[in-house]
Structure formats: structure tokens, C-alpha cells
């Protein structure tokens, strides 16, 4: 697949602080790329640089095989952006807002009318076309925000946390819409804090922190990077300290902890971990109410890579 975006050695400095440090990555045509990172990791700065909203200190950005510049209007014609904050006119109705933002790209009235119709349908706003933004709920506003960004049928779409603060129904609708856009041939760069969304829609993920790429790959590839391979939880009461020590020595165990009701064991890579544990519990006549095993999630990988300390 052809690379639609090529970012090479991108650097952005604010006085003494490096917001982006020698960042390089590609976005292939037709894929949904998830851009993950804690607050202040450089996601928004990277996107603003890619959209020429910010000047960068070094490196290069190419889109559709051409250098991206503030006056690269031919490239901009193929791009749609949905910012994190809802960016619509309070004074215009839903239809007028979509018409305005689509009109910045599409001059032909008939074509635009058709495109608006499709965007309204995609966002599920058919019944709200004459409403003003102040009359819409948070979820509807987000959907309007998306409709304004994608109405002109862009080939490349930047979605910056489009599902922040929306109810599950709206979130599902938005995610279905994104899948439909990809199906229609769009390439999508998607930033979010919700790991389940990334697992659900992204083909490839880049984890950023402090302006650097920490990891890149598919969700499964990233999960391989997790320190633990398996997490087993046993709901048991009155577990003696000596048993906990013996469990820690069973092999392949990275970490085991007990809080009085739950015994949580993190295993390194290996086989039959659960079977060995059950046999030990049986031998020692330790009775448990529930036992279950989990694979590491993207969230575990994210926390392993970026650390658990609080960010600004």
C-alpha cells in the first residue's frame, strides 16, 4: 500500500522544550492509524504540524507525495479534520454549518447539496437539520462536528478525540461512521485516550510520549510488548502468607499479590500456568469461589510503556 503521509525526523521546539523529538512515521492508504499517548505527549502538536497550523523546527512532512505547506491548497482539498473541540457557528443551523464548511472545499451547489445529504445521514442528524447548535445534546454536537469535517468527502481524515464526553449510543454511532468512511476509501488518523476504541477500529497504532515514538504496530503486535503474558485472579479468603510465598515459587510468575479477598498473579510467557495453579490450590485444599485468566490489554501495554505516574 502507498504511504499517504510520510513524516520524517519531525522536530518542534518551544524555547528550551522539545515537544516533538525526531519523529518519523508513515500512514498507509486506506488504513486507520491510532495515535496514542498521555496528555502532553505531542499528539496534538504532531497533528497541528502535519496540518501546517504550526511551524516546525526540523524534518519534513509529505502528504500525497507532496510537501505539506500552509499554501498547499491542493493537498488541503483532500483533507478533512475533526478537532477535539466542537468547531461550529452558534448562529447557524445544523444544515447551514455543514453547508458552510463543505462550501470551503466544494463550490458546485448541486454536488455540495448531495454531499451534505450524505454527511447528515452518516452522522444521523436528519431530524436536527434546522436546529441550532445550542439546541443539541453533547452527542449530537459531536456528530455535527464530525459531519462538518467530513462532508466534502476527504481522502485523508484527522479525527482528534472525536468521542470525548459522549454517551455510549453516540459513541457507537460515531465509531460505525468512522468504519463506513474507511470502507468508502478514506485514510484515517485517529487520536484518543480510549483503548477499547483503538482495539475496535485501528489497523495500526503508534504510541507517543515526550514527542517520541515508543512503539508502533498492530494491536496484537503491541500486546506482545506487555511485560506480563497472562493475569490470573483467584477470589479466595484467608490465604496464609506461607502459601503466597509457595505460589510465587511455582515458576513463570512475574508478580503475585493478595489483598485479603483476591489473589492476583502476573505470569511471564509460558504454558499451562492456570492448570499448575489449580493443582497447587487443590493439593493445599485451598477453596476459592472464582478463578479467571486474562490476556494483557492495550491499556496494560500503554501503561507499561508510558509509566503509571500522573501527567499534567
Amino acid at each position, binding site marked *: 500500500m502507498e504511504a499517504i503521509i510520510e513524516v520524517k525526523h519531525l522536530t518542534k521546539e518551544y524555547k528550551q522544550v522539545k515537544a516533538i523529538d525526531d519523529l518519523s512515521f508513515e500512514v498507509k492508504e486506506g488504513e486507520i492509524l491510532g495515535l496514542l499517548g498521555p496528555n502532553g505527549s505531542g499528539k496534538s502538536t504532531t497533528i497541528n504540524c502535519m496540518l*501546517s*497550523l504550526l511551524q516546525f523546527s526540523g524534518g519534513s512532512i509529505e502528504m500525497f507525495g507532496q510537501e505539506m505547506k*500552509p499554501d498547499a491548497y491542493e493537498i488541503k482539498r483532500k483533507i478533512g479534520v475533526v*478537532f477535539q*473541540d466542537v*468547531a461550529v457557528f452558534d448562529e*447557524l443551523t445544523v444544515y447551514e454549518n455543514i453547508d458552510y464548511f463543505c462550501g470551503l472545499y466544494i463550490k458546485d451547489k448541486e454536488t455540495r447539496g448531495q454531499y451534505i445529504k450524505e454527511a447528515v445521514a452518516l452522522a444521523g442528524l436528519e431530524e436536527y437539520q434546522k436546529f441550532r447548535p445550542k439546541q443539541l445534546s453533547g452527542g449530537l454536537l459531536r456528530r455535527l462536528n464530525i459531519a462538518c469535517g467530513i462532508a466534502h468527502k476527504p481522502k485523508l481524515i484527522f479525527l482528534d478525540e472525536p468521542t470525548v464526553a459522549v454517551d455510549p449510543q453516540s459513541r457507537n454511532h460515531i465509531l460505525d461512521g468512522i468504519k463506513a468512511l474507511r470502507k468508502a476509501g478514506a485514510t484515517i488518523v485517529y487520536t484518543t485516550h480510549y483503548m477499547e476504541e483503538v482495539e475496535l477500529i485501528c489497523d495500526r497504532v503508534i504510541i507517543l510520549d515526550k514527542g517520541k515514538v515508543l512503539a508502533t504496530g498492530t494491536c496484537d503486535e503491541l500486546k506482545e510488548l506487555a511485560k506480563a503474558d497472562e493475569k490470573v485472579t483467584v477470589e479466595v479468603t484467608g490465604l496464609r502468607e506461607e502459601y503466597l510465598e509457595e505460589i510465587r515459587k511455582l515458576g513463570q510468575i512475574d508478580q503475585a499479590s493478595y489483598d485479603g479477598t483476591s489473589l492476583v498473579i502476573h505470569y511471564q510467557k509460558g504454558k499451562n500456568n492456570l492448570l499448575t495453579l489449580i493443582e497447587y490450590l487443590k493439593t493445599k485444599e485451598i477453596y476459592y469461589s472464582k478463578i479467571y485468566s486474562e490476556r494483557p490489554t492495550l491499556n496494560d501495554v500503554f501503561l507499561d510503556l508510558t509509566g503509571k505516574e500522573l501527567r499534567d
Partner: protein
Amino acid sequence: MTVFKAFLRVLWQCKAIVLLYTVILVCFAAFQMQTEQSSIGFLADRPDILLVNQDTAEEEGKDCGLSAGLVSYLMEYCEVADITGEDAINDALFYRDISYIVTIPRHYSEEFFAYLRGETDKKPAVEVRSTGDQEASYAEMLLSRYLRVARVYGAYAENGKELANRVAETLSGQVSVEVASHLDTGGLSKAAFFYNFLNYSLLAGCIYVICLVLASFREEKIRKRTMVSSMNYRTFNRILLLSNGLFAVGLWMIYVLLSLVLVGEVLLSDQGVWYLANSFAFLLCALTMAFLFGTLVKNKNAVNGIVNVVALGSSFLCGAFVPVQMLPKSVLWIAHILPSYWYIQTNEYLKRMENVSPEALRPVLGNMGILLGFALLFIIAANGVSKRTRQIG
């Protein structure tokens, strides 16, 4: 067209503001014109006085002619109250029902002649009591005038009646005055009132509406979305400037139509065209100033404050509400830095301009040039600010 259409839609939300400033202008202009109409002619005021004539001893064979003449003269020019009793008179004076009390003492007429002929050193006097206000001063002036003329003719009159007749004849003389100038001062004053107040309406209307509309278009989130679009940002800015220009011209035309209704005959005169030209030059200033503020202001809530400070402030400082003649020199000196000053000065000059000639128009053209200079300055500043804020972060 997309941007212009959106501009019109956002502008439509500001219709109440435009209507409000138009209503204020019409009300103020109508009020001022009403005041102006009543001051076109001159009607002498009639002060309220009380007249106590004790010199009525004709039956004793005394000459009371001068006192009778004085009474008849004062009755002609004053409203003479009918009050008796010391308490009632004091109350009337205290409550300003009357402003002046004239008491002519007994034998005043006889003693007046005796004093003039040198038969006595005792100078006869009319007793007066006054509130000291404007009406009282006028009544005092009438009394003094009568007695002054009486003193002049006193030496040549045989008796009081003859003297009173001569004085009355002299004081009733009238001089006809012909105004050499054909200037319609009343009409021009009305036009000047209207166009001076237009300073406030144009400034407030332009700043309020343009700032609000620009704040919508330049709100950070919407600006980002516009900047990443395929529309050239310079073209976008140009369309916005032109749209605002169209709005400002539309607003000006509404006000010009209003002035045609209110002071139409003046606008069709030679001076009227210059009132229009001056207001158009000021409109360019208001438009560019509003554009500059619109570029600076990002918060819609700040617009109200700016309108109050800029439009109200400059209107008060430069004489849009208060006649320029009543403003202290120090205030007018400071006002030189404001476009409103030059606009209002031109209106005031046009009010007095006798005829339209290149020589007479020189100050008008000079002031209009200054206004255009201000407009140029504002647009350069707005452009500079716009360039600085084009990049985010």
C-alpha cells in the same frame, strides 16, 4: 459566496442591535429637532411681578402721571399678579410665584419732578424686592429703562402725564432688522445635530456588529478549521472585509435615508452633499476601526465594553451629544487624536458655511483627508495584528 452567505446569516442575528441604534438615533434626532424648532423665532418672556402703586393721590390735586405711566408700561411687558396681604406676598416671592415686587411710594411722581428741578436733595426711589433670578433681572431691566428715559425727558415735560406720554412714545419705538445672510441656519443646525449624533450610531453599530460577526468567524476553533481548508486564507479575509464593508455602507444608507426624511431639504442644498461626503469618510474610519477591534477581540462578551468605551467615550469627548462650544478646551485638545473630533468639527463648520467655494471647502477637505488617514492607519494595524495571530500555538 459561501463565506458571504454565512456572513449574512451571522449578521442577521445582530438585527436587533442595528434596530436599537437606529431607534436611538431617530428618537434623539426628533427630540433635538423639536427643541431646535422652538428656538427659531424670538418671543419676549413676561416676568411675573407684583405691582404696588401707592401714588394714587390725584384727588388731593397731586401729579401722579409718571407713576401711572410706569404702571401701564410694566403691565404691558410683565404678568402682574393680584396678591394682597404681607404674608401672601412673602409666600409668593418665596415660592417663586412672582420674581419681583415694585412698590411706587406715595407722591413719587411729585418728588421725581422736585428732584429734577433741584427743589429737593432727596432722591425719590421706587422700592423693589427681588428673587435674584433671571425673571427678576429682566423685570429690573424694564424698570431701569423706564426711569432712565424718564430722567432724560423730565426737564422738558410740564407734568407727569406729559412725561409718561413721551417716555411711552420713545420706548414703543421699534427697529426693523433685516438678516443679510440667506443661510438656512435652522435647517443646517438640524442637519448638524443629526449628523453629529450619527457619530455615535455609526461607531456603535459598526463596532458592535462587525466585532460580533468577526468574533464568530475568528473563534479559535473555527479559525483552525478555516485554515486547514482549501480556501486561501487571504481570500477568506478579503471576502470578510468586503462583506463588512457592504454591511457598513448598508447601515450608512439607512441613516442617510432617515436624514432625508428628517432634514431632506438641507441635504438637497449645496452644504447637504458635504454632510453626506463627510459622514461617508467617517464611515470608512468606523469600518476600519471596527475591523481592527474585531481582529483583536476574541471574546464576544468584551464587545459590549468596547462599544461603551469607544463609541460613547469619543461621542462625549468630541461633542456628538453636547454642543462643542460647551466642552472645555482641554477635552477638545485631547479629542484631536480621535476621528470623531474631525468629523464633528466638519459638521459644525458646514453649519456656518455661507457659500460653497473651493476656498470655503478647504477645511472640509482637510478634515476628510485626516479621516481617510485614520482609516488607512486602522487597516494597516488590523493587517499587522491579523498576520501576527495567523499561526496558532
